[in-house]
């Protein structure tokens, strides 16, 4: 490699005139870092949502009255099971409990002690959990955010929930959900279903909603219609709809950032173009000088191409690496709030590293083409002029 005089000259000139490239490189790093960080967060959340949706039932049945979701009677289970093709109808009890300041809330989820699948999963999830003890007394498992909130408010071992009857219900903290699951469980409280009903003010004969499975995918549409016609105030949500809703939400958020990136990149590229086309710029003089000492137009374009590629590659590698470290090692402070919000309980979320190589290579290509074009076009127009004129 050392034997190539061109490459030797190129590296020598590049590092000798590093100040000329410094500002460009720093701005490029900042742009690539921001966009990559947003895309890393977005793809990781999408990945987690896909996992979570994979474990969900095919349908969720709700009751809506006056545009508001209300509790539904448990008897609906029998009616739903009579529909051909429907399997395994389960109940869900959940709701938000607003703490005393009415600003911060936790999501209470009640689990059924008769549901074996749920119990097995709970045992796997929280080690050393004595299910019998947990499910048959006033205990709860809390997410990391809830635990920190309660500790800060001097409730390290349990909390006195205010029920709709105006009475206090003391519930002990039985354990904590691992903080690696904070993306989903940060504001969550898991407790036995009966206890959850008492705190949320749900009657014993009612539940929040129902879930059901239809193993044959081809029947989904017809069964959805059949169930929807069973009661006038029923609402049926399919797994596909939920998946779409989440996808749209995160595509929208990362799309806004992508749009901002494109605007900023266009501005940056224009500035670069301007810099190289300016009549009295040092770049112009340098090109004229090289032409005067006998360099061909092709050599000059090659030199500028190498220079641009070097700037782009350095910025890209550093930008993407910093974004990766920021998101997956330092847990993306500040930027994660754009996706999850930062108004409720504090969260320290560990995201699963997911790298979408397709998106990353698209960023690289878009950025490289625009960057190189903004340098090579003015360089070419200077190189074809008379060296004397260019050096003026």
């Amino acid at each position, binding site marked *: 490699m*050392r034997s190539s005089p061109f*490459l*030797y000259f190129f*590296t020598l000139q590049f590092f000798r005139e590093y100040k000329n490239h410094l500002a460009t490189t720093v701005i490029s790093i900042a742009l690539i870092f921001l966009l990559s960080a947003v895309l890393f967060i977005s793809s990781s*959340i999408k990945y*987690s*949502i896909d*996992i*979570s949706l*994979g*474990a*969900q*039932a095919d349908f969720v049945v709700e009751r809506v009255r006056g545009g508001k979701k209300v509790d539904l009677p448990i008897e609906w289970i029998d009616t739903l099971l009579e529909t051909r093709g429907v399997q395994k109808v389960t109940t*869900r009890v*959940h*709701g*938000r*409990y*607003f703490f005393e300041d*009415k*600003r911060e809330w936790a*999501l209470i*989820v009640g*689990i059924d002690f008769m549901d074996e*699948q*749920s119990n097995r*999963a*709970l045992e796997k*999830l929280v080690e050393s959990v004595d299910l019998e003890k947990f499910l048959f007394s006033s205990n709860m498992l809390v997410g990391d*955010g809830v635990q920190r909130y309660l500790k800060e408010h001097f409730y390290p071992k349990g909390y006195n929930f205010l029920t709709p009857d105006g009475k206090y219900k003391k519930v002990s903290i039985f354990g904590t*959900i*691992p903080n*690696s*699951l*904070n*993306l*989903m*469980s*940060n504001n*969550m409280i898991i407790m036995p279903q009966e206890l959850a009903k008492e705190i*949320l003010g749900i009657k014993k004969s009612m539940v*929040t909603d129902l879930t059901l499975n239809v193993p044959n995918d081809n029947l989904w549409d017809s069964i959805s219609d059949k169930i929807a016609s069973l009661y006038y105030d029923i609402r049926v949500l399919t797994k596909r709809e939920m998946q779409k809703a*989440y996808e749209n939400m995160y595509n929208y958020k990362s799309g806004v950032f992508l749009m901002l990136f494109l605007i900023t990149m266009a501005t940056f590229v224009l500035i670069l173009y301007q810099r190289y086309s300016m009549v009295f710029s040092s770049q112009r003089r340098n090109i004229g000088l090289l032409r005067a000492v006998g360099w061909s137009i092709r050599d000059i374009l090659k030199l500028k191409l190498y220079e641009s590629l070097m700037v782009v590659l*350095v910025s890209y*590698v550093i930008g*993407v*690496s910093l974004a*990766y470290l920021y998101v*997956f*090692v330092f847990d993306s402070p500040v930027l994660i709030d754009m996706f*999850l*919000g*930062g*108004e*409720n309980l*504090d*969260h320290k979320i560990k995201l*699963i*590293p997911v*790298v979408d190589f397709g998106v990353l290579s698209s960023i690289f290509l878009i950025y490289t083409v625009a960057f190189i074009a903004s340098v090579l076009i003015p360089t070419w127009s200077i190189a074809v002029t008379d060296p004397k004129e260019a050096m003026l």
Partner: protein
Amino acid sequence: MIREFYLLVMVLSLFLSAIIAHYSLFDRLEATNSQLELSRVVKMPLLALSVGYLESQKLFDDDSNTIYPQMQEIDRMDFVYEK
């Protein structure tokens, strides 16, 4: 090529290898399984959203109404048990 160039290549390789090492050594299976188990327990594809804008805006409004300061305060208990 000059010495600075090799130095730069080494720094960039270091960055890349750090990422590749972190990405490949991360126990993705365990993380995925834990999320799966939690979803099975709660039966909901939930994210721990920490947002206020999904809530009824009244909940976060100031008690007093700027146009009619004497207006009666809203009953906040309505929102305590919002489902």
